[in-house]
């Protein structure tokens, strides 16, 4: 019982309360929306990558599927893009079952490498798939046809929608964390052999975790496509999409409820502001700064920043060597 429901609700309430403060400035609103969007995919990754300790570098597969589902629904069926989100989630389940199961035999780096390869494969296949726009990608509606197209000039509505999804995910994760499933996933993450000896059905629980993780990542992909209005193989399936999820979760604290959110709250504004302040110089200084900060955090706080959240810090004591 790491975080009480009250704390989850308080965190969400704080995020909500910040929103009106932001209403003055569209750019800040957009950063806030991007923070929440990144927090959704990082928190989704966290279920399998953090709690269950299966470090996936291929979650862009789900993100891409969600994004493409949304814009395929628009370009092929003329539906509002968001109508494609359930299709994306459905596809994520199928993919989890087909690709996840055989990969679960793999341990550690081998699992990570397999997921990287699967994501790279998916990206290449979509690149060569003319029906889905191939390398050129898919475009969302150029102008809103109806409110359901979710095309807003202000980023605030996106912020609100993303926040609802994040809230659902966090409450679900909170519930999972304190239920049998959460215990089982954490046990799997720290020792599969020991977990199995206590009757934990490893593959089944990994699959459950992947279902939740993949579905929310796909949803995040759909939301991304709705907001940005464009998806191509690189922005959907690119390795950086996966790496960002991992880095955010790890930075904030993988396997903790708020870790990915903390990571997103730090990294997204950092990225946006360093790009705003230094990007125009064109020297790459933004990335240099970004890289140094990440290294410093990894060096001095290897467990992620969430360990500085008061209550959790009290529970962590130095590991016996």
């Amino acid at each position, binding site marked *: 019982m790491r975080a009480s429901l009250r704390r989850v609700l308080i965190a969400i309430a704080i995020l909500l309360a910040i929103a009106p403060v932001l209403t003055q400035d569209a750019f800040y609103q957009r950063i806030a929306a991007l923070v929440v969007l990144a927090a959704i995919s990082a928190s989704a990754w966290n279920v399998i990558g953090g709690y269950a300790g299966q470090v996936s570098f291929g979650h862009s597969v789900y993100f891409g599927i969600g994004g493409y589902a949304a814009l395929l629904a628009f370009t092929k069926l003329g539906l509002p893009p968001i109508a494609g989100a359930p299709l994306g989630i459905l596809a994520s389940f199928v993919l989890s079952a087909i690709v996840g199961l055989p990969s679960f035999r793999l341990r550690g780096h081998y699992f990570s490498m397999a997921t990287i390869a699967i994501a790279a494969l998916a990206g290449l296949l979509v690149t060569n798939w003319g029906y889905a726009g191939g390398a050129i990608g898919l475009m969302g509606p150029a102008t809103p046809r109806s409110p359901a197209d979710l095309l807003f000039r202000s980023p605030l509505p996106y912020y609100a929608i993303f926040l609802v999804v994040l809230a659902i995910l966090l409450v679900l994760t909170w519930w999972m964390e304190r239920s*049998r499933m959460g*215990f089982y996933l954490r*046990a799997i993450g720290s020792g599969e*052999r020991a977990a*199995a*000896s206590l009757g*934990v059905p490893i593959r089944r629980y990994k699959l459950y975790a992947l279902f939740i993780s993949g579905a929310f990542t796909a949803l995040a992909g759909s939301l991304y496509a709705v907001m940005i209005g464009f998806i191509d193989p690189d922005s959907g399936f690119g390795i950086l999409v996966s790496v960002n999820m991992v880095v955010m979760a790890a930075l904030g604290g993988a*396997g903790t409820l708020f870790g990915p959110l903390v990571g997103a709250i730090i990294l997204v504004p950092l990225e946006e502001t360093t790009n705003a302040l230094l990007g125009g110089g064109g020297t790459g200084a933004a990335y240099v700064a970004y890289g140094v900060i990440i290294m410093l955090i990894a060096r001095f706080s290897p467990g992620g920043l969430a360990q500085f959240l008061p209550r959790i810090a009290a529970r962590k004591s130095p590991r016996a060597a």
Partner: protein
Amino acid sequence: MLLEARGIVKTFGSFHAVDGADLTLAENELIGLIGPNGAGKSTFFNCLAGEARPTLGKIRFRGADVTALSSAAHAGLGLARTFQVPIVFEGMSVRENVMVGAFLRHPARRRAEEKADEVLEFTGLAAQADMLATALGTAGRKRLGIARALATEPILLLLDEALAGLTSAEMEGAIALVERIHARGITLVVVEHIMEVIHRLTRRVLVFNQGRVIAEGTPAEVTHIPAVIEAYLGRRAQGSPESRAP
């Protein structure tokens, strides 16, 4: 008969780690499994626990064939084990570690917690319940391993060198714990190196050598069988390294 293993063979490539071993266990027995390193007892043990699937042979548990079942399924049937090198779940407290085991029979969190507390009390870990499990020392970790296994409410518990590496005071405590577990009606198989422990705990011992059971009897009996002395004690006297993996 609680457990019956017949003609167990386990090969790795051309190497016969277990080469036709048998074992029968009655309800509420407490037996010892001894033998020199590399004798195959750990592999045999892994076969019993469902972690390794025997190449040949059958294992029946309460009459049902469990040979091909997974480790998790064994736990579900009431066949639990501990590990020689205890694996504790990182980032979880001692209580949470035990709850992982308790969830097997008690899916509801509250009940699992109650069960865990009961086991912690029984194993003498109650005072450390809220500590991070990784903060425990060797003795504590071994004890935690036993507690976790007990939380699955086993019928048969396989203890893999649960006492190795303990100080003599810790060992006394551990022996007392094993006896209390036995007193609860749980059947026990103990793999142990320390003959003194075997002498004190068990009435029946199986001696392994080169993948086979070469002797069976009371501790006192087997230690007088020449083959055992030669194979086991003799080789130990030559000082085969304790740490080498069997």
